[in-house]
């Protein structure tokens, strides 16, 4: 069970890192508030 939990959370981390990378490639997010882009994603 613990193994499945680890796989699920790893999958969630992968999806979130992907989302962050896609968002940081655009000029800004669409809504009217822009959270601070982490230093590692600034380009």
């Amino acid at each position, binding site marked *: 069970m613990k193994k499945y*939990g680890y796989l699920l*959370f790893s999958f969630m981390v992968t999806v979130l890192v992907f*989302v962050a990378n896609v*968002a940081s490639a*655009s*000029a800004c*997010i669409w*809504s*009217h508030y822009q*959270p601070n882009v982490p230093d590692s994603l600034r380009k």
Partner: protein
Amino acid sequence: MSGEIFSKRWARFLSSQTGQNDETEAVLIYAIEILAISVINFVLTLGLGWLLGVLWGTLAALLTAILMRHTAGGAHSSSPIRCAIITMIIFPALALLAKQLAGLNPFITDLLCLLMVLISFGLIWCFAPVENEAAPIISPQRRRSLRTFSFLAFFVVCICIFIIKQSLQPWAEDVYISIVLGLMWSTFNLSSPGHSFMLFLDGIHQEGRCNQ
């Protein structure tokens, strides 16, 4: 519980469960904030549009702004709450305005829309892409790409306007004018008056500050 605490708590939990470092945790916080803000704003805006009877117009204006802001950027509010309020009010208001404009003489409406599309093109030409402190554009290559994609997004929007304008469906007139207004709003946000307007909206509630 504020949004920031929520995203930090979830990011910390996922990091500890999967053994990530601090850098990845910061990325996770950013991703959770983006997703939360986007989903909440999207649902609230469409919900208000639906209540006001202008769901399709609101959706059209919103999708146009999403496309344009991703490539061209624009002015931002300094707080997520005010951002949600501004987003929730602006897009249904644009759809309601589109509904009013659709009732005018078609020649006047088309002329107004043409004028707004031309002004939008001029604003993209002059300002795109617009960065802000929270999401700076560091690389000149990325700046060039975003500028190119801004024009591409503009032409995609123009093609959509043209196609919907040809449609004989009863909703077509409202939707096409909503797209034009969504385009105008997102490109207005590129300009100095757009930033000043956002600063003004920010200041209505409390001491506001635009990100740029």
